[in-house]
């Protein structure tokens, strides 16, 4: 039994084109072949989670059944009652599988959990988002079938982008009109080829060609050297082009299926500050954290009147958001240090903006200051990704 990981090799893309062709023809003539779409999705899931990875497939099935039951149960409960502790319980239950998967390597000598599978994080984000919107009363109907399609939507299953249920549902239940769909196809082709350039040319150059050379020089030199910092930049480029390329494939595939999955990146390297960066980098994740963790925490603190200072509340929000993001990446010192670094960068960025607001007249604003802002943000972010890459760990901790 063969196993092909999504968007990794030519075979996958060839199968994708063949599989999507009937869907495309259907949508062009105003029809959505739901049964066929489901069968194709299953086929691609089997391709990813079958063969040598069959145990991941089992874990995925178990996970999906559990989460569907949980959403269904909470939806039914919410129609009659609205207790906070039940809501909390539902969220905790929803993230329990992910927490187990993330903590298992820590307690079991680096072994992977048997309930883990590729993309569990992204599925959990979608489920938690749904539960929160059910609590808010924004999701008014529960359709197990559409929910299932949403959770395991195959183009985005392994690493997002993280869609929102209500947005997905609207697309899924409709067929775009022909003019719009042709525009989507045009974009899809463009994204697909941009993705090829990003992932298989540029990311390959940085990751496979440049990085080993830089790493060898860093290790040969030993200790802190310019090569260590250079690793951060090369890693940042590799990560961006690899992930942005992957995201473009996922969005392109979604478009062909008539689903407007949101974009994940928007030219992050021209960001003027850290906040701007997070509005452009891995956007669906940062918006998810913003909407479901940061905003809710800040509102909660305001409602309970824990603190008077809005600034302090915002800062606590940042720390919480980015530390959770750090822990979510993995239980190692460098992911957590990365989270802390981002939170502090955010706090400083806010403080600077308040300062600038107050002293408008004294601080110049022109092309040069803007260029400097971009330059500074770029370097700060590349340094944060140097922490994130774990290279400091290999250089200074492991041996």
């Amino acid at each position, binding site marked *: 039994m*063969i196993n092909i990981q999504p968007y990794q090799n030519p075979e996958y893309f060839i199968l994708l084109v063949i599989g999507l062709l009937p869907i495309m023809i259907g949508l*062009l003539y105003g029809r959505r072949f739901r049964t066929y779409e489901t069968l194709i999705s299953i086929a691609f899931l089997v391709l990813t989670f079958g063969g040598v990875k069959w145990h991941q497939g089992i874990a995925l099935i178990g996970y999906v059944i559990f989460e569907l039951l949980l959403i269904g149960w909470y939806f039914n409960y919410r129609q009659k009652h609205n207790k906070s502790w039940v809501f909390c319980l539902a969220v905790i239950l929803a993230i329990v599988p992910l927490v187990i998967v993330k903590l298992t390597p820590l307690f079991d000598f680096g072994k992977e959990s048997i309930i883990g599978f590729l993309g569990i994080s992204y599925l959990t984000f979608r489920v938690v988002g749904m539960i929160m919107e059910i609590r808010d009363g924004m999701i008014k109907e529960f359709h197990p079938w559409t929910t299932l399609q949403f959770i395991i939507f195959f183009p985005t299953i392994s690493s997002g982008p993280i869609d929102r249920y209500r947005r997905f549902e609207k697309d899924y239940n409709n067929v775009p009109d*022909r003019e719009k769909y*042709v525009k989507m*196809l*045009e974009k899809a*082709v463009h994204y697909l*080829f941009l993705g090829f350039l990003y992932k298989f040319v540029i990311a390959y150059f940085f990751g496979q*060609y440049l990085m080993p050379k830089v790493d060898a020089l860093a290790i*040969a030199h*030993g200790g802190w050297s310019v090569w260590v910092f250079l690793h951060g930049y090369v890693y940042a480029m590799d990560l961006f082009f690899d992930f942005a390329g992957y995201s473009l494939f996922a969005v392109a595939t979604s478009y062909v299926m008539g689903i407007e999955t949101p974009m994940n990146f928007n030219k992050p390297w021209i960001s003027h500050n850290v906040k701007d960066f997070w509005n452009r980098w891995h956007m669906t994740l940062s918006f998810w954290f913003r909407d479901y963790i940061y905003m809710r925490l800040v509102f909660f603190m305001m409602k309970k009147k824990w603190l008077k200072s809005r600034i302090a509340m915002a800062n606590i929000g940042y720390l919480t958001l980015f530390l959770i993001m750090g822990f979510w990446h993995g239980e190692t010192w460098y992911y957590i240090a990365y989270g802390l670094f981002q939170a502090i960068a955010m706090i400083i960025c806010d403080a600077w903006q308040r300062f600038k607001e107050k002293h408008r007249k004294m601080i110049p604003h022109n092309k040069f200051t803007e260029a400097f802002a971009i330059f500074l943000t770029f370097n700060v972010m590349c340094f944060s990704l140097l922490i994130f890459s774990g290279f400091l760990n290999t250089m200074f901790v492991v041996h």
Partner: protein
Amino acid sequence: MKLKKKLFEIFGPVVCAAVILIAILVSPFNFRSFNSKTIREAAVSQSTNIFKGTVVKQKALEEGYVPFMGSSELSRMDPMHPSVLAQKYDRNYRPFLLGAAGSQSLSQFWGMQGINNQLKGKKVVFIISPQWFVKRGINKNAFALYYSNLQAVTWLKTAKNTLMDRYAARRLLDMPSSHSDKMIEQCLLQVAAGQKLNKAEKVYLDLKYNELIHEDQLFSTIGMNDRVAKIDREASKLPRQYNYQKLDSLAYQLGAKNTTNNPFRVDNAFWNNRLKSQVSKLHGEQAKFDYVSSPEFGDFQLVLNQFAKDHTNVLFVIPPINARWAKYTGLRMSMINDFNQKIKYQLQKQGFNNIVDLTNDGREPYFMQDTIHLGWRGWLKMDQAVDPFLSNDQPAPEYHIDNYFYNKSWQMMQGKKLKQYLQTHQAN
């Protein structure tokens, strides 16, 4: 009508690109030839893409280049380097350097797939590094640097159910790089188990071969190190007329000039970059090094077996180790001696009698460029054997391969057992 036009605008270029790409990759046509300038560059570039490929090597060997197989010593390009000497004194051969840091016997064996036809009845110079023969054999990452699926596909097309081929398949399967293509992996498993490949697999290998050979034609010369100017520069330091005495004293001077900042007669740059900062840690560090018991002896047997199959006449070079450095690091000369006896037995027993054994020259000043790599006077001494071997006609060698050398017991044999074995067998 409008829809069709619009769709054609969107997908027309994609379909065209796909059709052209597939036609290019799968078609059996050759659509690139290499000019002599490219070949000359490739011969001294030591680029991994050239090593992994086939077409450039084939072309070069057809034009009379002689493979110099080895590893990191090949990149020590001083005026006495074989590529420089051959060019300066307009010898009737030009070296094609095959190998760089980390290319050991197994890499060399797989690197020969694709040029076996060109090696038939030809000559090769092969530099053996004792340092390859470590307990664990070739490093898997180093192997990955020099391995390509093209090597495996080329080989699989002619693999047979022989001990040699089963051994080669098994060794390749030990390496993670052979698992990148599931079909190739499956074919290797079958060859390792002595099974025949089926029709579908053979068709797959043929198509895959076309695809990979085209990639090789198009891309293998990208990113080559251009060392031609470097070779020219080194050549300009040599006297116009070849004169061994003069060259030797020049090599002596160059060595003395370049090894002034350390007591080991190691090249200044190498000393500064690689040794200086950790020299105290390296004191006595090699006392336990052992090159006598290693799976590398089995991999080396694959190379010998391939040479025998191709009837290639090979000159083997066993370089020494910088004696001052060996003494400082505590490397045991008795172990080196055992290695030497063992490798020479494996060679001579099977009829590989052209051996340049430099093991005892480690004390000669400026023989080595650094710790373990030949340089200045070492290259020149090697040339004393290489030049006549390549420039003059040689009697055809007679090889008789002994499969015993694939045995684990031979690979691991050391100490008293090895001594006894060599005594009893050399007597006959």
